[in-house]
């Protein structure tokens, strides 16, 4: 028996054969003529080998097309149309390739890291020269994303294919099956979020990937749901879009809240007479202006400083901070039910 052929070499021979075939190749032709398939010791072993190789190629972005031919009845043939799966014309400089090789290190999850590595391998073919690796070396942030939900969801968004998963709702603690038409994946402070149409509710919903339990399973065929209209999508994403940058005025005790002071801006002038009582508060405090986008995020941050930081304006941030403080001031009163 001839020495067995390396799997990578067999896959390469299969690609070349199916790219160059004049019309299509049948399974039998593959088995008898493509190098490597003669190693199969039985019909069953050949079937397994060929199916696995087709799956591998599909995963790599080289789908093997099934071609039926009226003249041959049910007899199925295969070919690969490389032009249809070619990268759009692009050239990458060594510096850009260097950036991409750092991007590979971003993901802590092995699945995502493997996906990124493959993308890099493909793009190296269109590099003008070897990557300049020192440009961003050591600068890659490490991002935790749980690939077990992320990978299948990315695929489902791409394929416009509904998914089903078990989800724990934060509002009620209820654990339930959800069937969702996935629209977008968002990276936000607090983790990854899936936005899509919840089929049972008939409305768009957001799902934190961290609250998905177990596997994400595809449901139905690819392309089987209508994509959202621009208005539907904008509506669903509104809650996740950062607001405009605004400025808050804070009254800070001397030598306190250095982290807030470090990002102080001085191009805003709060008028102490515009807010009753502000002059009194500022008598022994410094006036500090900071920029913010989210009212609740800033309110949550400043309450951590306790009496060292008082929000003067705007009223929205002040009320949010007061609300947190009032609720917390009752923490040592035993409660039967959660505080409203």
């Amino acid at each position: 028996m001839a020495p067995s052929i390396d799997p990578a070499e067999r896959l390469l021979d299969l690609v070349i054969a199916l790219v160059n075939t004049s019309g299509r190749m049948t399974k039998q032709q593959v088995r008898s003529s493509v190098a490597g398939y003669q190693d199969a010791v039985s019909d069953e072993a050949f079937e397994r080998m060929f199916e696995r190789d087709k799956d591998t190629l599909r995963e790599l972005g080289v789908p093997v097309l099934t071609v039926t031919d009226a003249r041959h009845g049910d007899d199925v043939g295969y070919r690969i149309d490389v032009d249809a799966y070619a990268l759009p014309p692009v050239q990458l400089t060594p510096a850009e390739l260097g950036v991409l090789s750092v991007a590979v290190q971003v993901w802590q999850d092995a699945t995502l890291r493997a996906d990124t590595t493959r993308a890099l391998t493909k793009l190296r073919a269109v590099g003008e020269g070897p990557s300049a690796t020192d440009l961003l070396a050591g600068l890659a942030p490490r991002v935790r994303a749980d690939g077990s939900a992320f990978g299948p969801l990315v695929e489902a968004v791409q394929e416009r294919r509904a998914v089903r998963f078990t989800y724990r709702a934060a509002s009620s603690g209820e654990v339930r099956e959800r069937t969702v038409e996935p629209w977008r994946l968002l990276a936000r402070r607090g983790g990854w979020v899936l936005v899509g149409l919840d089929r049972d509710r008939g409305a768009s919903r957001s799902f934190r990937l961290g609250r998905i339990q177990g596997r994400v399973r595809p449901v139905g065929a690819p392309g089987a749901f209508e994509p959202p209209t621009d208005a539907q999508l904008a509506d669903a994403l509104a809650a996740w879009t950062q607001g405009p940058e605004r400025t808050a005025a804070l009254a800070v005790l001397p030598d306190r809240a250095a982290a807030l002071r470090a990002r102080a801006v001085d191009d805003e002038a709060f008028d102490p007479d515009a807010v009753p009582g502000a002059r009194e508060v500022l008598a022994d405090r410094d006036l500090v202006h900071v920029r913010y986008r989210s009212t609740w995020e800033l309110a949550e941050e400043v309450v951590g400083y306790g009496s060292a930081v008082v929000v003067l304006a705007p009223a929205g941030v002040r009320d949010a901070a007061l609300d947190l403080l009032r609720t917390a001031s009752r923490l040592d009163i035993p409660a039967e039910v959660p505080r409203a």
Partner: protein
Amino acid sequence: MPERAPDRLLRMLGMVAYLDAHDDVAVDDLAAQFGVTPDQAIADIDTLWVTGTPGYLPYDLIDFDATAYERGVVTLVEARGLTRPLRLGGREAVALVAALRSMASSLGPALDDERAAALRSALEKVTAAAGDAAAAVDVQLPAAATPQVAAAIGDALARGRRLRIRYVDAGDRTSEREVDPVRLVTDDERRYLLAWCRASQGERLFRVDRVVAAEVLDAPAEEHPLPERAEVFTPDGGEPVTLHLASQGRWIVETTPAEAVRDLPDGSFEVDLRVVQPAWLRHLLLQAAHTVIDVRPAQVAHDAAAFARRALAAYAPLLPPGEGG
């Protein structure tokens, strides 16, 4: 671990496309282009040379210039139809675009003009190459630090220099320390600088938004042995505290290293924490107060409530009489 066949296949396909566009490439350059050793590049070329269309007679095979190859130069003579670089798969494109966007939003102000330009153009080109796939993800992460601090951290990491930082801890205490930076770490909530702290002689995760000043020193950063899970905050020791929370407090276990979580039949749950910094727990309780059902030990709840009452008192001049809290 031996390389997986699909990864080697991808590289060999890439090599043919690359060599179709570039004549006379030295083996060492080809190896560098694909990020492998020269020996691996030679093994890949040798494999490519014997592959081709069925029949596998000389004219069926991928072919290189043998004379040039003897001189260590690779010149493709026959590509057998493999000249087109492969499109990015959906997951590949999304993983790469999302990684680049995370870098852009995390490093943004930390980069000098040259690096920022390379990151921007790489992201633009990859986004274009990814096509529709790029729209599947949307990355919006908050800026981590002031531009000066971010730039100093970026510079120190890129050049392997020691940093002097002014750091504010969870208890609002400011200290100055010299650190040997290792890398930036992002979790779901925040950015951290993983660094060796010379004062405490150990690795520490510094919240980047609490670094209020940073100066790059001339001394090189020394290498220090780091434990495997240095990137994950794992408090050793600390006081055991148990929180009983309503379901809406679920985010706490998603963002906080918990020792144990017990789901209760009514949808609420208990979480056991180890608390090294009381100020950190107090801040957590202030943010989550509306979901807190019970805290053990009770003194912890009492401290947080007293802290909140003192803060409310500071607001008194701003509030109408009788609304002091």
